[in-house]
């Protein structure tokens, strides 16, 4: 799937601006950004709910806007299953079988059995966690190549979250499905995603692989006899400060080894394991739940 120069203006305001990226088969891509950054608008535009002001989204070279039939290979799971709350599970299966020719009802039933999800007369009878699981089962049962998930684990308990993550990883590894997940939960994305798209004010701020990220930054804890040296402060992002103990995020381009800090004679110096959250606290500043 190729997203090319995608822009969207709403009420004269640019909500998405020149977004470009590719999604390769069998990958999980995390979509992150602060509230109102344009994540949901991007997903809705990719899937054709919103028409872009300019740009295109193509699957196998065919635009989803001019050839919506290619959306048989693209499935969107919104953050709420409210639209389907009046359907029974049997009705939904019948509906999806008619809309998606490759829909695998057997797979769906097997998932429901595996996760002890009962058949219901109304989807609204499911708990929030059950709805999330059911939506995922349906998404994978369509055999779509690309699945877009908007906040799939938002408000779910730890057990259901683990089940969702497990299912996602299984599907991607076994069937080569590509998944784009919009989420605020960086810890979960770090566990699942290989690529990251960072949206800031409707623009694609960054796009990288997680393995690159670990090579791009280092997280250092250092204590100094006085304040942090000004030269070092300019080079690093301060993630945390407790008294004279600083937790710093260092960009590997401007910082190559711990020896560079040793010249400031720190009282304490050690490298800490880097998390995705650290990078985004440094990038966005403040709230760890970006």
């Amino acid at each position, binding site marked *: 799937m190729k997203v090319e120069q995608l822009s*969207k203006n*709403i*009420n004269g305001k640019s909500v998405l601006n020149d977004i470009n990226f590719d999604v390769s088969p069998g990958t999980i891509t995390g979509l992150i950004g602060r509230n109102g950054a344009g994540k949901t*608008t991007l997903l*809705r535009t990719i*899937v*054709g*709910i*919103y*028409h872009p002001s300019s740009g295109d989204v193509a699957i196998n070279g065919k635009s989803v806007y001019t050839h*919506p*039939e*290619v*959306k*048989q290979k*693209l*499935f*969107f799971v*919104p*953050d*709420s*299953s*409210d*639209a*389907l709350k*009046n*359907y029974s599970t049997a*009705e939904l299966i*019948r*509906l*999806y079988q*008619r*809309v*998606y020719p490759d829909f695998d009802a057997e797979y769906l039933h097997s998932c429901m059995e595996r996760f002890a999800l009962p058949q219901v007369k109304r989807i609204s009878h499911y708990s*929030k966690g059950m*709805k*999330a699981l059911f939506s995922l089962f349906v998404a994978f049962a369509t055999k779509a190549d690309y699945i877009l998930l908007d906040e799939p684990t938002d*408000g779910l308990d730890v057990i259901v979250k683990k089940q969702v993550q497990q299912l996602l990883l299984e599907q991607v590894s076994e069937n080569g499905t590509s998944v784009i997940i919009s989420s605020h939960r960086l810890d979960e994305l770090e566990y699942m995603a290989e690529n990251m798209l960072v949206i800031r004010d409707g623009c694609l701020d960054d796009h990288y692989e997680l393995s690159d990220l670990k090579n791009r930054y280092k997280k250092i804890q250092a204590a100094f006899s006085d304040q942090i040296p000004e030269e070092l402060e300019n080079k690093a992002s301060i993630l945390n400060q407790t008294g004279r103990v600083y937790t710093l995020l260092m960009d590997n381009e401007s910082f190559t080894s711990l020896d560079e800090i040793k010249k400031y004679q720190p009282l304490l110096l050690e490298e800490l394991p880097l998390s995705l959250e650290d990078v985004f606290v440094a990038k966005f500043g403040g709230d760890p739940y970006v």
Partner: protein
Amino acid sequence: MFDKGLWLQNYKQTKLVIGLMFALYLVHMPFQAVLAIETWMEREEMADSIDDYVYEVQRWDVLQVFSEGIISVFLLITVVVLAGLLIGLERNTRKMDFAFSLPYKRRDLFWAKWAFGSTAITAFHSFSFLSAFLIIWFSPYQDAFNQVTTAEILIQPFVGMILIFTFALFVGTFTGEMISQMVVTVLLGFFPLGIYHLTERIIDIHLNFILPIPRFLDFITPFMYVLESDQHSWMAGSGIIGIIIFLSAGKRIYERNELEHNGEFLIFKSLHRPAYIVIVLMISMFGGTILSSLAPWNADILQILSYWIGFFGFLLFALLITRKVLEMNVLIKSQS
């Protein structure tokens, strides 16, 4: 147009109203036919008791069975609600995430909605008509059909219902949610006649001249195709033309819908200013009409005075309320 998936989706979305419509059609013509026969029998008995008086069923009596009565009004409301459920409901709930992410062209989504509603109306109307027709046919009043044509009792009422449904769907393509779709359908559905009556009143009280009602107003007022039982013979033809116009215009607009404005009164921002002016003006004129009608009919000056008091009173109210209405957003957020 007849995609099974979309058919199922539309049915699920409108199941209750479809059931209600079927129930109304079930009692509409057959029930009125039975009642009419009863009435005709009573009148005949009464006529028999009077010397030299023979009772004959009138043309008007037959027309009433097939296109009049309170049930016609309920059916009209049901048809507008059906269109509202098919388009408007998708706009102010999260159903749009589902409907518009499906692998269909918007054109096909629109056609499917129209085909679904029209098929339901066609099936129920035919059933209702046939039942009523057979009830009268096998009664002593079979000859009553000699006074009316098939166009008058079948084609015109049927075309009227399809026209109203198509019109309400068309309105749904530029309104932002279900309630505004139904309100605008009613306003525009009576608009030509409404404008005539408001204008006629202002001319009447200021110039003492009653503006004659032009016949063409019936042709361009959609609701008259259902509510007017004694229609001009050309109205079936103009109704079909109306269906074609509203259908093709609706399809075009639906394809160009900017769904990010779903939940607002109108989804095209460019329509806000003209809609604001027209609504404010109509409410003000309506206010003037209401207040002037309270003045004694022969007190000309008082009538004029009360007209303008009503006009400006309602103008203030309209200025306040209309802006709020046009700026509202009733998008129902997620409740997962």
